[in-house]
């Protein structure tokens, strides 16, 4: 297998883009990435998009996006793993370059959610339709089930949960691409509307339009395009049961620890070696558990980790310097790639006000549904 590098990235501002269509948003970040990389052609394309079908009645997205990018003859496939679609697309692109099949691969992620009439229904397709959704559970509901069980088992407090949102908003206020650039307090979180006890509106990532792209090429070609390429040194993926009630322990996210284990093994590193991470905080409780599953802290101590500021900018292991899904926004299919864009910018030293000093190794963790899919990538300064 060849070594693979990221040589360029692009990202739109995340938010409600009433004037931009699905194709507009994708092309915007793709053009930005192509310009950033300085490539003059693309060999192949993977795009992560959870559901063009349910949101805007458009499937066949590989051909669709290739067409609108002006690349209508290249191989192009849409990749889907619910909210892990972007990370999965990155993995597919990585495999295609690593295998030697293609040299310049564009990996994009995009979602246009604000055109949809019933966003909740579309998002619920990531869960078990017949035996979870049929009974009236929602996504916040599924994570609330996890939160209640976790809080009872480990004594996590409501305030500690809120701290995740507060931290991510603080980071988001430093990110020009973030949907929300305002700081919030613990009170803001605790006073927001209850969505599914104990989770409140401010525990939940928002509905967002947005897109992100990276350009991949073999490491041996990377210096042709940029002085600061970033290597992808590890890629790991794992799945778990689709229904939350089928899991052995609903306070764990086994797919996360497995996918991380596989990525760490490929990269030949340990959790302590990671300088910063972009993780899937679809709900505040998710980030708490993910930090444990990634090995940043022992099981049950995720709340203490965030409380002590260890995952804040300037802390031991900054998590979600981009603002995370909570503040940056969560255009479902775009998220996994947006995480890679943030780590790319950080490792290139382009993260501006939110730059982590001496960032050498970064990790992205993208998750689908209530934890049924997880994709982890590890990047290192080349």
């Amino acid at each position, binding site marked *: 297998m060849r070594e693979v590098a990221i040589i360029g990235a692009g990202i739109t501002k995340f938010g409600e883009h009433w004037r931009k269509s699905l194709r507009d948003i994708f092309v915007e970040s793709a053009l930005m990435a192509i310009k950033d990389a300085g490539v003059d052609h693309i060999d192949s394309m993977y795009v992560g998009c959870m559901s063009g079908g349910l949101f805007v009645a458009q499937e066949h997205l590989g051909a669709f996006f290739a067409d609108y990018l002006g690349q209508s003859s290249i191989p192009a496939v849409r990749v889907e793993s619910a909210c892990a679609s972007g990370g999965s697309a990155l993995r597919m692109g990585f495999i295609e370059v690593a295998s030697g099949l293609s040299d310049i691969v564009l990996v994009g992620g995009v979602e246009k959610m604000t055109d949809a009439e019933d966003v909740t229904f579309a998002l619920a397709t990531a869960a078990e339709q017949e035996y979870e959704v049929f*009974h*009236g559970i*929602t996504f916040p*509901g599924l994570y609330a089930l996890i939160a209640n069980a976790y809080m009872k088992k480990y004594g996590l407090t409501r305030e500690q949960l809120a701290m995740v949102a507060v931290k991510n908003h603080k980071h988001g206020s430093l990110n020009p691409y973030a949907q929300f650039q305002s700081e919030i307090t613990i009170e803001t979180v605790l006073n927001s509307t209850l969505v599914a006890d104990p989770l409140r509106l401010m525990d939940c990532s928002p509905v967002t339009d947005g897109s992100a792209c990276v350009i991949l090429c073999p490491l041996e070609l990377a210096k042709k395009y940029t002085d600061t390429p970033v290597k992808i040194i590890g890629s790991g993926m794992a799945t778990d049961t689709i229904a939350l009630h089928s899991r052995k322990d609903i306070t764990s996210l086994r797919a996360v620890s497995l996918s991380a284990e596989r990525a760490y093994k490929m990269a030949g590193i340990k959790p302590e070696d990671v300088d910063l991470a972009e993780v899937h905080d679809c709900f505040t409780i998710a980030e708490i558990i993910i930090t444990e599953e990634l090995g940043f802290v022992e099981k049950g101590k995720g709340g203490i980790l965030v409380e002590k500021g260890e995952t804040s900018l300037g802390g031991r292991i900054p998590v979600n310097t981009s603002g995370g899904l909570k503040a940056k926004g969560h255009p479902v299919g775009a998220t996994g790639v947006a995480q890679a864009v943030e780590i790319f910018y950080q490792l290139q030293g382009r993260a501006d006000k939110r730059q982590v000093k001496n960032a050498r190794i970064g990790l992205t963790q993208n998750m689908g549904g209530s934890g049924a899919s997880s994709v982890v990538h590890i990047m290192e300064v080349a």
Partner: protein
Amino acid sequence: MTVPKYWREIPQRYRLEAGKCKKCGYIAFPPRQICPECKSQEFETIRLSDKGKIISYTIIRVPPKNFSFQAPYPVAIIELDGGGRITAQIADASPEEVEIGSRVRIVLRKIQEEGKDGIICYGYKAVLEK
């Protein structure tokens, strides 16, 4: 919820019919062809118990469209006596009454309707045992 899909699932929705792996005893609800534990493909049909306990729960306050009239309602993961876990609403209970560990009994209730002119979908919910 299309008609054929709903009809196919009646044994599970009305009678909690599940599959029990003949080799290792794993209980599959709904029934499936391959045991995730031992990979055997031989199952016997069993009915899950109609009694169990709450493993975790939440109160849905922002419901999906076709449940809007019912909110707020409790939904729980229930472990049934003898094995098998389901996700189901807790009926006839106010939010304050539900606790992790509460004992429940399964009952048949309307789960959802397809508007005023579609089929009525019945299935399992749970009520708190005093």
